[in-house]
């Protein structure tokens, strides 16, 4: 019995230690950001690596989600004779929820794992230690630009996901199914509020950008310097970032959308 309690206690203390370690890493990262901003090209190069190179998957997914949403919602709405509201429903689903969340999950999978692997391998190859010995802070030179790059790229990707999704829904709803184009846009426009829906969606995607990029960088930095270590690190990035995003989504949705 006491062994069980002792083990639980040790587990709890270990959890607190990990939490504290995350917190110190976060603070170090934030403190390294101003130095990174003084070298804008580093940040720009990272936005390219993280954002630009994710465009294909985000746009393709956005289009696909837009198509499917339009199709599914049409079947549901036509029963109530409310198929004119198709545009509105698709827009709200995308800008409020699917845009930020699905983009974040795809981001964690594509950009997150690539960040973790890159940082993990740099650590394994002693590149970060070499920088340290050259009196160059690896956090400012390597980690902070990637952090800023991720936070900047995420909202842009989420916006593009939603925009492309709506256009895809338009193609299916108006061009394929035959919903009236005028109604499609006007009912959508009267029901979607820029500050509330689009704005909150952007705030969500910024928060998700923080979460995904931070988890990816932490897992890469703390990964064991072996191939297995890096592999575990990338898996943990996807799992932890995805769970974090989904839980934060619930919290943010409750905060933002609870009063109609």
């Amino acid at each position, binding site marked *: 019995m006491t062994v069980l309690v002792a083990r639980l206690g040790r587990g709890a203390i270990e959890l607190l230690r990990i939490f504290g370690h995350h917190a110190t890493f976060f603070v170090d990262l934030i403190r390294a950001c101003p130095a990174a901003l003084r070298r804008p*090209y580093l940040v*720009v*190069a990272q*936005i*390219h690596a993280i*954002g*630009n190179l994710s*465009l294909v998957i985000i746009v393709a997914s956005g289009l696909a989600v837009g198509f499917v949403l339009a199709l599914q919602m049409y079947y549901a709405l036509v029963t109530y004779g409310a198929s004119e509201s198709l545009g509105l429903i698709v*827009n709200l689903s995308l*800008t409020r929820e699917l845009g930020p969340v699905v983009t974040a999950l795809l981001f964690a999978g594509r950009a997150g794992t690539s960040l973790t692997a890159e940082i993990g391998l740099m650590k394994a190859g002693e590149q970060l230690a070499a920088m340290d010995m050259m009196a160059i802070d690896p956090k400012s030179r390597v980690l902070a630009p990637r952090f800023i790059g991720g936070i900047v*790229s995420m*909202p*842009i*990707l989420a*916006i*593009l996901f*939603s*925009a*492309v999704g*709506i256009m895809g829904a338009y193609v299916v709803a108006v061009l394929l199914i035959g919903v009236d184009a005028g109604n499609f*846009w006007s009912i*959508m*426009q*009267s*029901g*979607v*509020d*820029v500050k509330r*829906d*689009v704005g909150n969606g*952007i705030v969500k995607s910024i928060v998700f950008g923080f979460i995904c990029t931070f988890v990816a960088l932490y897992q890469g930095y703390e990964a064991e310097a072996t191939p297995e270590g890096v592999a575990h690190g990338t898996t943990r990035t996807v799992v932890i970032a995805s769970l974090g995003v989904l839980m934060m989504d619930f919290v943010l949705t409750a905060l933002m959308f609870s009063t*109609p």
Partner: protein
Amino acid sequence: MGKKSVETLVGIFVLLGMLGLVFLALKAANLGTFSSGDTYAVTAYFDNIGALKVRAPVRSAGVTVGRVASIRLDPKLYQGVVQLEIQRDVQFPTDSSFRILTSGLLGDQYVGVEPGAQEKMLAAGDQTKQTQSAVVLESLISQFLFNKAADAGATAAPAPAPAASGAKK
């Protein structure tokens, strides 16, 4: 990948993002249809606002000319105080009536404005009590039943008298 090409590509990326945002804001949301800058506020007192919500449209002759800005209860008069933001280029006479109507059969509620005949126009900050409350479904039903009962009562009233006199005999 040269420095210049990377910077150009990132520039394109950010530009795409901004275009997407503009698209979402204008084409897909209500920013383009109604700019909240040029409006003036008018306050209307209602006995019952029904299901009116903030940001519901204010329409005259079916055309949206404004939005509901805020709704609260006046603690002394126990009336709903609705603040309306109306486009500056649309003016209504001071005796215009404000009614809460429903768009369609099951649609959202909005404020309809019937222009009056006065020469003087409502100005910013004016209050009006020329209002008609929302139709509450329960009152409608109870009124209907009451009317029905009244009709039935009128036809049924003469019948018991002859029966009673018949019983007395």
